[in-house]
């Protein structure tokens, strides 16, 4: 076990039985990763990918079927380690009859603080997360908006000045202002050298805050690396018109979005020549060729989308265009490879 690692996960598997069947489903499948101390680590995945399950194993709330997980060199869930970590669950729930300072006082007392110290700490933290106004302080949690609950959640996560923070979707469902505030707070924690295990759907936030990122799908780790490494490689967005060209692009180029007689393909720079050849071959018109910086969202869609393609053949979605609903199609990565191999 690496003593320098803040979090060390080795071959972690969590299985759940399928009700009424003799089958099991892998919520986490042979996951191996390491998070260093002082690192902000983004843990991405679609709904049901296994992110929250992994975090719950690391906190000792549930137990792995196979494999090991350790936090600061101790087995996951160790009580001694809980003095040094904190957890912000997705959509945190608190006792509804309490006010924000009362909730934070309650959690502070769980760390063994005296009532007076706990109250003092609660006052500081409630002010820190922006709930220090007279109105907010006296409101019961039952009357809180989602953003206010999230702020209380952050306040309770900072009581023990933790070494590692486990944040599960901290900006999910928040309005733009609350999201920005929480992102700023995460940047402040990053500046202070905290280790953070951040699970999020808000890819812009992850891109901005995290040193390293991993993407899991159906419990399996797909990619892991620094944000710069993962986003390396120039991408180009090519828009073409002409129904035959649009169809040809949709059939032959993965990552193409087709609607009516127009298609947009986002491809690696080295593929531009091939794509232009496809458009010309189908008698289409190239409308634009725009260099595009790859975003984490592109990578996420690429990876998760490819995995979906591998199992279902293709991904389709209905969107509304100026001409009404249109069916957008993306060809599968496998189909593209097959076609390119044939050619």
């Amino acid at each position: 076990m690496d003593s320098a690692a803040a979090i060390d996960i080795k071959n972690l598997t969590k299985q759940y039985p399928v009700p009424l069947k003799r089958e099991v489903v892998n919520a986490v499948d042979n996951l191996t990763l390491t998070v260093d101390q002082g690192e902000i680590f983004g843990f991405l995945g679609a709904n049901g990918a296994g992110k929250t399950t992994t975090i719950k194993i690391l906190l000792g709330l549930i137990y792995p079927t196979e494999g090991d997980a350790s936090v600061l060199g101790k087995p996951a869930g160790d009580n001694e380690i809980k003095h040094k970590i904190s957890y912000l669950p997705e959509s945190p729930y608190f006792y509804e009859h309490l006010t924000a300072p009362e909730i934070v006082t309650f959690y502070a007392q769980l760390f063994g603080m005296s009532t007076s110290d706990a109250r003092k700490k609660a006052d500081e933290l409630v002010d820190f997360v922006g709930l220090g106004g007279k109105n907010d302080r006296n409101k019961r949690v039952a009357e809180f908006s989602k953003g206010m609950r999230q702020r209380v959640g952050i306040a309770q996560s900072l009581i023990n000045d933790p070494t590692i923070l486990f944040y599960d979707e901290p900006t999910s469902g928040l309005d733009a202002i609350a999201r920005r505030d929480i992102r700023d707070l995460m940047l402040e924690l990053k500046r202070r050298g905290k280790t953070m295990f951040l699970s999020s759907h808000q890819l812009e936030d992850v891109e901005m805050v995290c040193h390293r990122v991993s993407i899991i799908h159906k419990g399996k780790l797909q990619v892991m690396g620094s944000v710069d490494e993962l986003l390396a490689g120039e991408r180009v967005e090519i828009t073409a018109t002409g129904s035959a060209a649009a169809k040809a692009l949709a059939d032959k180029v993965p990552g193409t979005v087709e609607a009516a007689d127009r298609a947009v393909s986002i491809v690696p720079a080295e593929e531009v020549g091939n794509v232009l050849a496809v458009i010309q071959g189908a008698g289409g018109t190239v409308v634009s060729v725009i260099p595009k910086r790859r975003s984490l969202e592109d990578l996420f869609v690429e990876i998760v989308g490819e995995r979906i393609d591998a199992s279902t053949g293709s991904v389709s979605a209905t969107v509304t265009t100026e001409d009404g609903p249109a069916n957008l199609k993306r060809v599968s990565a496998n189909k593209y490879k097959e076609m390119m191999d044939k050619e």
Partner: protein
Amino acid sequence: MNAINVIARSTISEAMRKKILNAFLMVGFAMIVLTFAFQQFSARQELTLVKGMGLGIISLAGIFITVILSINLIPQEIERRTIYTILAKPVRRYEFLLGKYFGALGTIALNIGLMGIAFVIALAVKQIGNPAAVNPLLMLKGVLMIYMQLVLLCSLAIFFSCFLSPLVNFFLTLALFMIGNLSSFTQDLAKTGGNALVKGFFTVVHYLVPNFGNFQFTNPLLQPDVQVKSEAAFLTQNCIYAVVYASVLLILSVLIFDRREV
């Protein structure tokens, strides 16, 4: 110990705000006050009725408060996900469970205590000028026995709540409470039942189900001529029985809850 104390206090503060529990408490108060309505009996009969009804009402309200409170303590924390942030703090699972349990006992004590005080006051007022008057504080022995019975009932409900849904737990706990109240009956069946299988079944039931019938102390309080041989020994023995049985159930609950995924 600190975490148990903090969780217990929080449980009491939350439980005392639960409308359904307050409703039982209010009905209990109302029924005790209603005992003033008995006018058509002799002074002695009237007192016997008031005492019997008062203790009965406290017991009944206490049973419902205990069962409804205890069956929801753990499942509600899991369902509302409040347990996540608590167990992510340096709180061991047994501390959480014991905190909830002692919080429930505190809530029950408060409810039973308030009804007991109301009952004693009502009885004292009712006895003014009554030649058959007895010290109303003697009734607190009956209230103590009711409380110890509820301590045991609470631990039973918490034990089941570690692995059963609240609905199943509600019916199972009440069913076992009823069977446990008929302990002399199950004992007879264990001795005189038809075949060996029936005898064996009732022997297991008799020894396994908590003996809730032990805590019946109403008769000696109502009838001056009914005497318990050694009252102090009877009360102490029952208190020890409740504490030992509840401890065994709590140890089992801790073992189950320790491996439970939340």
